[in-house]
């Protein structure tokens, strides 16, 4: 018999099904995902890594204003999308480009925010992906609202709400978990703990035993997983999604991962951490370990490798082709979308800008 408290607390150690050497470990509560899921996930990881590295290169070429990379966190990115059904919702942050693309959103539309031709480029209702949130944790309460609306309508939608370790210090993180718990909203709060909020390490954000432990304060079950083990993440997130869908209320999952690169290309990580802190994490790379496991299990055929490489090449080409040309922008659009019907004052200002542009052209 476990007590209510024990049911809310996370596992003693982060759930890990495949270790950094690619060795399989049994777990009393979680099963290894199917071979098909692991192979599909491997392809997505390779593709996700290529998206990160190609986008970073495009920043250096001046084609993106900035790119907060999830290099090294691809297992979290891929798992967050893979466990969702078509009708479910995803609430991503600015660092979650890979998971958005993995959910099926066009990569060029996904990068609109970072390219700078609009604040968000994709149709949120096409794949049920909310716009990427920049203000930390503010999207988490929206996720609760979407989930609650689904419940009121009798739909079995689950909402996956993403944030990082720094965002768990924000008031909205607390309010979202509390509201979700009180309304029994089917939300999976998925925290990618990558160790840093720009320069500030987790030790300066919280002294809680783990972020997953924060769930108990709201009556939300917390669980933690090795954030670089796709198999463990699929198992833990999959179970959290199932529980939320079954009416058990919100779930909190923390992934222990690491931001191996700087916050963005504009950041200088040497000012706040030593290289030797990064090195051990390179050995824990999510792709290497899955590759090692699939190889040893005889699942990594040349065919699969080719499939992964083709997907990666295709998406990289898509990014270069889509982002190299200068995007066309329309200054009229600055006034079009604020209201269903623009106010008379906005109509006047649009006319002013139109005249100014006409004079410049004349």
């Amino acid at each position: 018999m476990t007590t209510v408290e024990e049911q809310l607390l996370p596992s003693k150690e982060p759930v890990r099904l495949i270790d950094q050497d690619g060795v399989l470990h049994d777990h009393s509560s979680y099963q290894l995902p199917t071979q098909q899921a692991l192979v599909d996930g491997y392809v997505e990881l390779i593709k996700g890594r290529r998206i990160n590295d190609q986008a970073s290169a495009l920043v250096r070429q001046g084609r993106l204003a900035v790119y907060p990379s999830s290099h090294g966190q691809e297992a979290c990115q891929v798992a967050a999308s893979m466990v969702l059904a078509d009708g479910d919702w995803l609430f991503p942050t600015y660092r979650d480009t890979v998971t958005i693309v993995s959910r099926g959103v066009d990569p060029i539309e996904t990068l609109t925010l970072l390219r700078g031709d609009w604040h968000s480029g994709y149709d949120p209702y096409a794949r049920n992906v909310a716009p990427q949130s920049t203000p930390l944790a503010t999207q988490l309460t929206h996720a609760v609202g979407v989930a609650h609306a689904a419940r009121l309508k009798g739909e079995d939608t689950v909402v996956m709400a993403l944030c990082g370790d720094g965002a768990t210090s924000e008031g909205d993180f607390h309010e979202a978990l509390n509201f979700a718990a009180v309304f029994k909203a089917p939300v999976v709060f998925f925290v990618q703990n990558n160790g840093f909020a720009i320069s500030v390490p987790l030790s300066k954000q919280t002294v809680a035993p783990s972020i997953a432990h924060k769930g108990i304060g709201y009556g939300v079950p917390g669980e933690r997983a090795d954030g670089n083990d796709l198999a463990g993440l699929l198992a833990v997130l999959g179970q959290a999604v199932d529980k939320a869908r079954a009416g058990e209320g919100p779930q909190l999952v923390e992934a222990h991962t690491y931001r191996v690169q700087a916050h963005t290309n504009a950041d200088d990580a040497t000012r706040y951490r030593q290289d030797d802190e990064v090195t051990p994490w390179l050995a824990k790379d999510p792709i290497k370990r899955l590759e090692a496991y699939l190889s040893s299990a005889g699942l990594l055929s040349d065919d699969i490798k080719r499939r992964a490489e083709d997907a990666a090449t295709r998406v990289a080409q898509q990014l270069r082709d889509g982002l190299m040309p200068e995007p066309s922008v329309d200054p009229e659009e600055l006034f079009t979308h604020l209201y269903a019907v623009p106010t008379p004052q906005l109509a006047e200002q649009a006319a002013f800008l139109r005249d100014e542009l006409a004079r410049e052209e004349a």
Partner: protein
Amino acid sequence: MTHQKISMAQALNQALRDAMTADDSVLMFGEDVGALGGVFRITDGLTAEFGEDRCFDTPLAESGIVGMAIGLAMNGMRPVVEMQFDAFGYPAFEQIVSHVAKMRNRTRGRIALPMVIRMPYAGGIGGVEHHCDSSEGYYAHTPGLTVVAPSTVADAYTLLRRAIEWPDPVVFMEPKKLYWAKEEVDLTEPAPGIGTAVVRREGADATLIAYGPSVPVAMEAAEAAAAEGRELTVVDLRSVVPFDDETVCAAVRRTGRAVVVAEASGFASVSSEIVARVTERCFHSLAAPVRRVTGFDIPYPPPKLEKFQLPGVDRILDAVDDLQWEDS
């Protein structure tokens, strides 16, 4: 029962009841709005009539309330939330400014947020600190929000119904000192919607421009001025955003003189915006600079001192007297 004598609080309650009856997607939630019916009883009886799913209490956290409303609106609902008092809305400020106001623009119109943030506001009720702020300026300054402030019982009903049907988020400022004043009204009568100001009183000599709690004060001042032989027009803005330049400027051009009356501190305020707009548009019709009667630039005073802060009839009449009549 077309004609009835009811208070603004009852009219707002009726508007919510009728909106919830007309449209199943309308939800009402916030702090103490369930069994209690709200601290001002605006949601009285709604939970009993429509059930816990339609009108409900939330945990005590304004950012969470507005954030959840955003998600509900994204997923097909028309949420109406209550910020218990003007100053209690500040924890939700980030949600309002960064998301409520920007979501439609951010997504090129793909996500609309049809939602209403009801906010009992302004002073004159002897409230202690944090219960009497005139916070409309913050919201009016934020592109993407619609800001409405009724001044009559009939308008409270009409404007709240229109706000709930509005395709965009509305910050609905309810002048709490007018909650209990009763008027004979016919709620079935058609009335102008959001974005239209109305002339409450016609007079040839000068125009008083007011909204929300300042309208009855302006009307009283106009009565007093008439007794002294000066006829004043009173324009009630009804909505601060969108701003009805046409009605306001037509009145000012007719009268050639104007005074703006508002409870909020005057510095960098809605009242200063009105003066700027009127001056830019009506300069050649003006016989005198546009004057303002506003709250001082101080935090809202404690109850025993609030009478010094509120624009009153005497200050308005003094401002009217100062409109350089000797030159005309």
